[in-house]
């Protein structure tokens, strides 16, 4: 156990040194770090609990995905039946399906054929699985179209992907450093934005669907009348966002929608000096807007964002240039955020915030300090105790543990892992347990020596017997760390990572470095008795 060939010794030292050196880039200043060659640009990321920032989990609501799909099916069914000139009544959403009654029993087969075209294969036309996203069934003269759960699921997954793109565009506009936006499971999006002072603005940006529409205001009756009685067909009552909310009677037909915007910028109205958002339509949008305003001069139209009326100006003259402005008593920041939302586009479905964790920069800095002090105090106490108990061998153990910690940070950097406060606790605990491998070896050496072996033979036997135990005991601890990694999230996962890496480096140093150092000492001193 005590013989090392030169090459082996060199390899052990080289591997340890290289892994330790991987930690160095994390310590450099940003400019020095940037000047490194790209393969060295790997560093430890501080968790949000240490650098401050927001962690937000958004969820796509499968229920609203289903609802949107149902509305779409209803509209498509109406179009298809109308195009095929089939008479129908009672086309409406009933629970989880769209139902329609065909007037003439002879038309039912034809209607069925037409409506079946609305069911699309899941995963697009190229999919070979052959599953459809909608069930079309017949009961007498009634035909029901129900989205299948597989269809809703695939739409949810699609909605998540689209939302991620849009959220990324929105957050990029905030100008924060290194936001991370990831899919989490089938229906969630995890957003991490470091160094954000105020998460309420972030949440406002994420929580809005930002569906912008331009629609005409219906003047045939007052909104109050419409609320009390029956609103005219094709209209609905929407309110403004102010306090108290003002109701408007709005036509359901959309003149132009947010998809047709090419640009939106915050600005100021030249005459009132009020913050506004100026926008430009694409060709299609500009043409439709021009036609609509030409036909309706003198009537008010409404600008609607997520079912709230922002403003309802009167069309004084046809707007032909394809650009315009939205004013709505905005603050500068509100105008700014609305412009961001309009530029990034609308989310395909509303998102819900299901989890939020924000740490202010002050607490983060305190945690770093606390973690640092605890590490230094813990390591010092353990190191002193080891020297007091084992003398020179204690020093060897301490060197091994120091290299061990260096390697933990090196590996963390190589993996680009995140260091959290529980992660720092994991390092401190590793220091506590890493010396255990040394203790096991040393105690075994003492035992063997007491049993009457010569110094060198005792050391040799001590190592070979203790190493088996070290392996067994660390594998079980590693299993616990691995489970924790799978179960945990955020800071807890940070703990699992450092703890797990710590166990691996501990076993490595026990098998190589400690043994090498003791072997060198034995060769140099030729001890007659064991010094512990």
């Amino acid at each position, binding site marked *: 156990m005590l013989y090392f060939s030169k090459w082996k010794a060199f390899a052990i030292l080289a591997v340890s040194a290289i892994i330790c050196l991987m930690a160095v880039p994390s310590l450099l200043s940003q400019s020095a770090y940037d000047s490194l060659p790209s393969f060295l640009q790997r560093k430890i990321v501080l968790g949000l609990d240490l650098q401050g920032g927001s962690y937000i989990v958004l969820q796509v609501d499968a229920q609203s995905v289903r609802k949107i799909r149902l509305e779409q099916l209803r509209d498509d069914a109406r179009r298809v039946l109308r195009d095929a000139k089939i008479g129908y009544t009672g086309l409406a959403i009933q629970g989880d399906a769209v139902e329609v009654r065909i007037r003439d029993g002879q038309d039912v087969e034809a209607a069925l054929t037409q409506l079946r075209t609305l069911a699309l294969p899941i995963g697009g036309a190229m999919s070979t699985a052959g599953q459809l996203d909608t069930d079309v069934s017949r009961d007498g003269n009634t035909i029901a179209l129900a989205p299948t759960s597989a269809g809703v699921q695939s739409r949810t997954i699609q909605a998540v992907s689209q939302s991620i793109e849009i959220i990324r565009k929105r957050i990029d506009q905030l100008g924060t450093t290194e936001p991370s936006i990831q899919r989490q499971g089938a229906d969630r999006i995890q957003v991490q934005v470091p160094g954000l002072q105020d998460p309420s603005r972030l949440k406002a940006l994420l929580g809005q669907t930002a569906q912008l529409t331009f629609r005409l205001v219906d003047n045939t009756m007052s909104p109050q009348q419409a609320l009390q009685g029956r609103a005219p067909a094709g209209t609905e009552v929407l309110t403004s966002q102010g306090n108290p909310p003002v109701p408007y009677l709005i036509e359901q037909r959309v003149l132009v929608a947010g998809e047709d915007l090419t640009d939106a910028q915050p600005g100021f109205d030249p005459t009132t000096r009020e913050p506004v958002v100026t926008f430009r339509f694409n060709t299609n949008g500009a043409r439709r807007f021009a036609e609509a305003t030409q036909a309706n001069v003198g009537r008010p139209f409404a600008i609607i964002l997520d079912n709230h009326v922002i403003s309802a100006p009167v069309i004084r003259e046809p707007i032909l240039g394809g650009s315009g402005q939205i004013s709505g008593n905005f603050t500068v920041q509100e105008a700014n955020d609305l412009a961001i939302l309009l530029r990034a586009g609308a989310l395909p479905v509303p998102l*819900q915030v299901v989890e939020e964790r924000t740490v202010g920069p002050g607490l983060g800095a305190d945690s770093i300090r606390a973690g640092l002090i605890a590490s230094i105090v813990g390591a010092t106490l353990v190191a002193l105790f080891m020297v007091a*108990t084992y003398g020179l061998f204690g020093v060897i153990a301490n060197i091994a543990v120091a290299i061990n910690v260096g390697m933990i940070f090196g590996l963390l950097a190589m993996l680009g892992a995140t260091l959290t406060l529980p992660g720092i606790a994991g390092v401190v605990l590793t220091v506590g347990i890493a010396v255990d491998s040394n203790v096991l070896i040393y105690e075994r050496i003492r035992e063997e020596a007491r049993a009457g072996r010569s110094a060198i033979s005792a050391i040799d036997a001590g190592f070979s017997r203790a190493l088996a135990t070290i392996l067994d005991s660390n594998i079980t601890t590693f299993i616990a760390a691995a489970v924790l990694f799978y179960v945990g999230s955020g800071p807890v996962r940070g703990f699992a990572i450092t703890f797990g890496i710590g166990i691996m480096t501990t076993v490595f140093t026990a098998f190589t470095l400690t043994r090498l150092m003791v072997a060198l000492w034995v060769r140099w001193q030729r001890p007659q008795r064991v010094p512990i």
Partner: protein
Amino acid sequence: MRLLRIVPDDTTFDFIRFRRISFPISALLSIVALVAFFTMGLNFGIDFKGGTLLEVRYANNTLNIGDVRSRLESLDLGEVQIQEIGGDGEVLIRVAQQPGGEQAQQVVVGKVRAALGEGVEYRRIEVVGPRVSQELLSYGIVGLMMAVFCILIYLWFRFEWQFALGASIANFHDIVLTIGFMAIFQIDFDLTSVAALLTILGYSLNDTIVIYDRIREMLRRYKKMPTEELLNASINSTLSRSVITHVTVTLALLALVLFGGRAIHSFSVTMMFGVVLVGTYTSIFIASPLLIYLGVSTRAMAEKAEKEAKSANSKAERLAP
């Protein structure tokens, strides 16, 4: 230099006979822990219960806790806990989960902010909705069970089944006592507590395995030694290591408890209890004596070895024509 020697060489303490005291003590403690768990319950944090947590700081002694309390109570948010922490004008505010699903939770922070007004530093805000808290709880429970199961399987492969079972019983004992401790002292039970429990599990096993390893080694070597004597010798010969390692782990944990900051305080305290008080005790006084009841004995081992030798012999005979 004279080296520190905590445990004298060649101790001969009769740990195995001590089981007549340690087993009843453990049984009693486990009952106390279970009673505490079922009567007092765990102090679930927002990770598992859902709700909102805010940590705020009032600069330069402007904190008036009574004022904060009356402002927040006027909001009508249901159960609100207000706790002064540290001496630095810091307050921890916990608002219970609001009825009305995910969306309802989002209003709380805004209301609290409006009620507290200007001049407050928001150091931490956490909102966990009902869906996520449910999931986190089930993940935590599944995780603990998975860990125990995986470790059981590993030990079964690596040792005899008696050892695997003994270690698992000892493990269970550790978890029960630690959960009882958390119930009695109403320590926050959140995700980091699950981490603490899993780590305690790992450590306690680590200890148990060091002793089991030695028992296995002795069983192979001393086939004639009476079982109790052999178990005692194994525990005694690893005693020095057990104690020294526990001193080092305690030192590391002490640093975390004293200086690690509030964010991991409940984690550190739980670990201190589980690792330092329970873990070592379990491996020495519970896990090892248990082996007697599980049928580990020098005779059984000798018989088994004989059988194996015989079958190897007969195989050899069959092979030799």
